[in-house]
């Protein structure tokens, strides 16, 4: 049986950070809370798509807001309790299976809070295969699946149910509610039945994060491995960001003696330019990795003076198909750059 447990939690977190492309918040935000819950509640069972029964209800979960805020107003184990109670009331006879809505960053760990407290299994999949700044950048949104009902909750025990007839409203509503909740909320959205899984999931995301996490323990081997493309290396010489419309918007400059790299981000790293020329970007995953530790750095953790590698990893295949590429291609994205 595949599990998430105290032994592989660190590797899982590292791999999830890498898949976050700088965004999604650093899993360390939740790591301690999960370890704390594991002390009392044990381990989390991971099931695969083939274990899913037709009428299982899969509940994708995420925290929404600015990662900088999670790290300051630290999450609470009760933040999904209200939301879970409401879902149970709505679907009293269904087996509930949890899933990370987004594998990249701290949300890889988010469903573990409920999974540990209520002994629920987690599905080895997610809605995105990495992290993206907007809710409409996920598989079911691209495939125009309904998002109803969506639940939003906060750290103080409030929970709201949304039933929206336009998908575009989801992003706006969740963002507004989240701002009212102190820029930090928990969300369950794109709930689906086991039989419809194909329209919703990027399969094997949890295994992928675990695999990358193990490889990252030897950074030098990892950067030369075949899944990765080394773009360059250097020292972080400037970090410039601001919060705008709920996003951490900014860029960082990384320099060595010959080259200068600029990486643009909107929560996630979305584009790299080398000496003024764009070289790679979304949907490929961009990672800035501290040379010494092999730690992938998230956008809010960038600090002046650190020695890093810049590398990219190919996007999950779903994002390179003709129907989804235009939505996330950095060449077409209206990046609000700074």
């Amino acid at each position: 049986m595949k599990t998430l447990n105290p032994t592989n939690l660190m590797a899982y977190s590292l791999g999830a950070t890498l898949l976050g492309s700088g965004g999604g918040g650093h899993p360390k935000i939740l790591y301690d809370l999960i370890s704390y819950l594991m002390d009392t509640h044990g381990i989390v069972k991971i099931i695969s798509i083939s274990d899913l029964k037709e009428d299982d209800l899969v509940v994708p979960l995420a925290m929404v807001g600015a990662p900088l805020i999670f790290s300051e107003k630290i999450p609470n184990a009760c933040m999904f309790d209200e939301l879970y109670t409401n879902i149970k009331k709505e679907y009293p006879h269904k087996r509930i299976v949890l899933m990370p809505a987004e594998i990249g960053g701290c949300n890889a760990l988010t469903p573990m809070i409920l999974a540990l407290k209520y002994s629920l299994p987690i599905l080895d999949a997610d809605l995105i295969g990495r992290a993206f700044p907007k809710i409409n950048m996920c598989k079911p949104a691209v495939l125009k699946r309904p998002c109803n009902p969506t639940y939003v909750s906060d750290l103080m025990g409030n929970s709201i149910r949304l039933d929206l007839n336009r998908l575009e409203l989801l992003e706006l509503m969740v963002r507004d509610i989240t701002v009212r909740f102190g820029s930090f909320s928990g969300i369950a959205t794109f709930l689906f039945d086991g039989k419809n899984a194909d329209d919703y999931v990027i399969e094997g995301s949890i295994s992928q994060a675990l695999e990358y996490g193990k490889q990252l323990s030897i950074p030098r081997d990892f950067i030369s491995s075949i899944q990765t493309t080394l773009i360059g290396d250097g020292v972080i010489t400037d970090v410039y960001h601001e919060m705008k419309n709920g996003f951490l918007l900014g860029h960082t400059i990384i320099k060595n003696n010959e080259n200068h790299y600029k990486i643009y981000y909107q929560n996630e790293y979305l584009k790299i330019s080398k000496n003024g020329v764009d070289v790679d970007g979304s949907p490929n995953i961009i990672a800035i990795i501290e040379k010494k530790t092999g730690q992938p750095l998230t956008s809010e953790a960038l600090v002046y003076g650190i020695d890093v590698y810049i590398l990219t990893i190919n996007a999950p295949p779903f994002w390179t198909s003709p129907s989804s590429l235009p939505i996330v291609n950095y060449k077409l994205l209206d990046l609000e750059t700074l």
Partner: protein
Amino acid sequence: MTYDKSYILGIDIGGTHVDIVAIDTNESIIAFHKEPVSEHIENCILRAIKQLLNKGIQAKHCKAIHLGTTLGINSLLELKSLYRVGVLRIAGHHPDLPPAFNWPIEKKKNIIASFETINGGREYNKNLISEFNPSEVHGAIDKLLTQGAESIAIIGVFSPLYSNDEDRVAQIITDAGYGDLPITLSRHVGGLGFIERENNTIINATLKKVFHNHFLDLEPKLKKLDFNGEVLITQNNGTLLSLQQALQFPIKTISSGPTNSLNGACKLAKLRQAIVIDIGGTSTEIGVIEDGFPRYSSSGATIAGIPTNFMLPSLEVLALGGGSIIRRQNNSYVIGPDSVGSQLYGESQSFHGNQLTLFDVGNVLLNQIPENGILPSLSKTEATRIMKQVIEQLQNKVNDIFIDDKVVILFVGGGSQNIPDEYLNEIHQRPLHYQVANAYGAALAEVCGTVDAIHQLGEDRQGVIDKLEQEAINQALANGAEIKSIRIIEKRLLPFYYMDNQLTRVIITAAGKKLLIDE
């Protein structure tokens, strides 16, 4: 011989020795001494200084005394001379995760007395998370004191941006007359990131005891010896802090030992790039100097196994030093991790003791009999094998952290003298005065100026930052830095979310060499 020119004293207070150097206006060492550590650090310092006075140094020409110390880190590692800390969180959402959750268990048990959470704390936009209630403060402090708290750490959500709640709590405690109950406010010792800042705050709160014990009476005693120069303590970033500030914020000095040794080693060797291996009595620290300055690790630095968000020099630490105890195991040797430490003069075989140490192995290979000692009975063949193993362990560690194999490796620290020349290859160097590299680094510690203020960066972002950098530089100048060596060593921008015109807390530090001139 007597010197009648200005000088600075650099003092390194380590686990086994207090090292002292005097440097002149050319940064040359004019005298140095190594004094074994005894119970009372203050007395060791005074004894070491008197030794220099015997060598012809005159108290009245001393412009400053720079203390570098591992007292803080050692007391955390050994869990000695620490206050038990009461943790007071101002966090209306009442987080489940207790303080010190991910600390090594022994540290948590010895340092944390108890914790309390009260209402208040801020959202990103300054709104209160929940209503602050002064009477909760009294209740919480009373509980913490009952649980044995001797020092209080106060952490408010978003306090680096909004200090209101922490300041109110501090005021309430002061007004309530809890005597000299030491308090530490988190905003003074850390940036955003609640858990790491909380850890910084607790460490600072607990360390106040050891600094209080060792440094409170130092200045008056130095005055009695006619030393009227400033007494300063080196901090993590290689710059200086007043003794008064260090008593308030001991955590700022916690990593100054490695910083001093890295800087000192490179300046002794006159190199701008090197790997530095500092072998002390109980441990070896390996760091990297690039372009004249230590390489730093990211925000994930740990102190004695405790995660913090301090920027510290990136270091590899090995439990291997001159006093490391060596044991035979099957066909090889186990070196350390324990050390005879400050008992080297009683327990090592060279001093009739029972323990075989690296010091003894060195003596055998170098055919060297220490004063009042003997030559240990270990065979040359065995000694050679042990020394080869030591060099291999060090080289392996270096290979772990550094790819470029042409960079010079500097051996410094008292433990380095145990390695005979023939074990070193062409890229290994032991610069002159390598035994006191750390104290030399302390003597060279820089003067800084810091700006910590809230500004609207707005349209003219770069303009505003340039102006603030200039302010920091001017302050460094005013504090006695030499103009041509000044540079910016720290630049942190903490934006206020959703506020107009990029309202930002800006922290900029400029540092430069201390200007020392002869009268």
